[in-house]
């Protein structure tokens, strides 16, 4: 088999291989700065990983708008939005640490695998230094774990399940949005005031993690104030017609229905419940009531006038500063610049994403480094104000923000499609604060990972 023919092609091939071999040591380059994707040019790349298709595509679109606005403001464009009201003045409008902010976008499809693939390509291909986004807790938990492994900071977008900063918390992950536990704690006193302390509740719960933690939180809080839980029924996530689940509610002797549903589930179950005339019923001598623990403007729009009079909780509302005063400053500044750019007020998903981006940029500036460990240190235990939620604390023990929770009710006569809810009360932060080590939130934060 030893036949050596010198051909032009063979020679070229051999020399190319030899050349590559010789070039190898010369072009070996370690990551500068000792952490993953250390920005080396005059730009820095952020990764916005949101659902652009699937059940939460509307929320994803609104999140993306907020991110683009945040990047514009960080780079000194527009009116600066909440950067004018933010209690920290580290951000100058010249990018982050003088580097122009660029971004890449990806579609999570509301699937953990797709979300991780998208986040990985941002990290491995586009060199993103921070990943943010998400409209579902499963995705948030999956991407947060990935960022922990890769040594990237994860700033969670809309994710409400306890697990994100509970059982699945990670040192490189941070959540500004509130959670199921906080919803329960914020709603309970309002419910006691509105509907009394002697009620019989019936739960319909979406059959997945977020549903479980929300039902758990609502049961615990309502039972503590004297309500009785008659029954709790799990409904499949793919269910679109809830009639067969609503009918037994009437026979159960319950006088409150709690819908632990979100998105399309909630729109459908609420519509069914209202069509069955539950809200006109009187049971045990009391008016029948319906409660939706987690509200969202987009869901309210979907449910139309069925939403009127229904209580629920929100992380933030665009009318907050106008109605509840200066404590929530930043709200109007944000609503104004968002409205000017897009022509309608932002949703709570948009607000939490915008704020998370600013908080990350601010933490980098204050730390003086993009190193994830320095950023983690700057964010842990950080107290800030002027971002629309009032004084807020990023707790060091679990990387969860503690701030006031808004309790809202569907308006009886909405003036337009963006003004569907009225603010009933704002439950102060100390009422919704819990110890980081209670059983619902058991988990290990681990240590920050700067990657390679």
């Amino acid at each position: 088999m030893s036949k050596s023919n010198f051909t032009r092609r063979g020679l070229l091939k051999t020399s190319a291989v030899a050349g590559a071999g010789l070039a190898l040591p010369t072009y070996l380059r370690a990551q500068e700065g000792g952490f993953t994707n250390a920005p080396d040019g005059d730009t820095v790349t952020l990764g916005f990983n949101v659902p652009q298709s699937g059940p939460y595509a509307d929320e994803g679109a609104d999140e993306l708008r907020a991110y683009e606005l945040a990047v514009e403001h960080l780079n000194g464009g527009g009116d600066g939005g909440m950067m004018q009201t933010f209690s920290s003045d580290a951000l100058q409008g010249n990018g982050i640490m003088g580097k122009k902010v660029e971004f890449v976008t990806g579609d999570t499809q509301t699937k953990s695998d797709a979300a991780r693939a998208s986040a990985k390509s941002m990290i491995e291909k586009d060199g993103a230094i921070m990943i943010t986004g998400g409209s579902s807790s499963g995705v948030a938990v999956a991407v947060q774990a990935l960022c922990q492994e890769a040594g990237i900071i994860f700033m969670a977008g809309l994710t409400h399940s306890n697990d994100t900063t509970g059982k699945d918390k990670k040192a490189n992950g941070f959540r500004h949005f509130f959670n199921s536990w906080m919803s329960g704690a914020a709603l309970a006193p309002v419910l006691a005031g509105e509907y009394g302390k002697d009620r019989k509740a019936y739960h319909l719960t979406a059959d997945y993690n977020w549903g479980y933690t929300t039902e758990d939180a609502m049961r615990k809080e309502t039972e503590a104030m004297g309500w009785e839980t008659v029954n709790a029924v799990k409904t499949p996530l793919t269910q679109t017609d809830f009639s067969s689940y609503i009918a037994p509610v009437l026979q159960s002797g319950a006088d409150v229905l709690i819908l632990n549903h979100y998105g399309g589930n909630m729109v459908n179950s609420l519509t069914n419940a209202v069509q069955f005339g539950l809200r006109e019923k009187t049971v045990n001598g009391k008016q029948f009531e319906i409660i939706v623990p987690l509200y969202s403007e987009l869901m309210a729009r979907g449910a139309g006038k069925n939403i009127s009079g229904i209580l629920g909780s929100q992380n933030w509302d665009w009318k907050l500063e106008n109605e509840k005063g200066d404590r929530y400053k930043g709200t109007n500044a944000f609503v104004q610049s968002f409205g000017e750019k897009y022509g309608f007020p932002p949703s709570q998903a948009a607000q939490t994403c915008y704020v998370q981006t600013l908080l990350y940029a601010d933490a980098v500036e204050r730390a003086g480094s993009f190193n994830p460990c320095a950023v983690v240190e700057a964010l842990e235990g950080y107290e800030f104000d002027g971002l629309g939620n009032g004084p807020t604390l990023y707790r060091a023990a679990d990387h969860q923000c503690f701030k006031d929770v808004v309790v809202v009710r569907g308006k009886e006569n909405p003036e337009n499609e963006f003004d569907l809810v009225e603010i009933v009360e704002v439950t102060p932060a100390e009422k919704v604060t819990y110890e980081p080590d209670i059983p619902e939130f058991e988990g290990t934060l681990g240590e920050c990972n700067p990657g390679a």
Partner: protein
Amino acid sequence: MLGLTKKDFALLLVVTALALFAPFILNPFPEGSGMAQFNAGYPDLMQRFAIFGIFAIGFNILFGLTGYLSFGHAAFLGVGSYAAIWMMKLLTDNILPAMLLSVVIAGLFSLVVGYISLRRSGIYFAILTLAFAQMSYALAYSVLTPITGGETGLQLKLNDPRILDAALAPGERANANLFGLDMTASHELYFGAWQFTFNAGYYIAAACLILAFYLSIRIFRSPFGMMLRAIKSNNTRMTYTGLNARPYALAAFVISGMYAGLAGGLMVAMDTQVGPERMFWTASGEVVLMTILGGAGTLIGPVLGSGVIKYMENIISKINGSILHEWFSWMPDGLEDALVTLIYPFVGKGWHLTLGIVFMLVVIFLPGGLVEGGQRIGRMFRRNGGASRAAKDIAEQRNPAE
């Protein structure tokens, strides 16, 4: 060589070369250039190419040879993944036992599903497998939450038992490894403006792909493979000659289930997390698309098909409006906007639309998939008596359709 004919061996060599040099082949554009958008040579996507290649090769053994269309193959991939992650949580972070168990468990599961489903054929078989897969998905999503982690799925945790491994030092994380070789370890080679990444995990997946491909050639060329083709061409006649075809079909089903399990195990080895949507019916549909797009019944077709689909999913889907505007910014304003509006529905989240169009075109004009396209092009360049030879090639590569 290796028990292969010269031609098959050449094909194996081509696949091996493609797999080994993938970091070069997939990164043809220099970093920072406008075309860098189309580079696919980063570890995660290369791993996906290899993993879904294995998945599709396995699926092709069932669908391409016996003609049984399973619409539930993602279930085996998912089961394999869950088995692998539990192995890594309980036993050791080494990926070998995890992958072994994932193949075994997926094999057992496919034995049960196959035993029941293969009592029917045609559309009823497809529906039965689909039902099993959706059942597994629903179980993993909610009912079996304590085992599967429900919607959130499972990941490695610091406090997992890992009885064979030494306790983690403070600050240390549990990483998937092969006897200490970290799956995420990468070696970067800079060559002027070009950047090539050699990732440990990818090369392990590629080794599995080559092995899987070799096995598939052997199965295709064996008497057993002939028997499977007989099932496809005329099952009734087989029965009349006194042969019981079902054990053969079941064996093919289990083998392809084990391939899916291996793919699932590799997915966990490369990226230590599992979620139930891996078993959703769309994932089962995807592997059918991959096989048909590449060419069902051909050896290399499924690998090509999975590559095309994964490339579109990961690269086309990331082109957004602002990137399009950047590309066409040299044009006059009106024209630029018009062109962007025209192209926008087909990129970004519209990649499904592009895939659909490509799939339609392939099915209508190249019923034999991309492989047939390649052969037609080859025939055009091989004028001298090529026509008859090419026809023979096709006959060798593809099974006669019924």
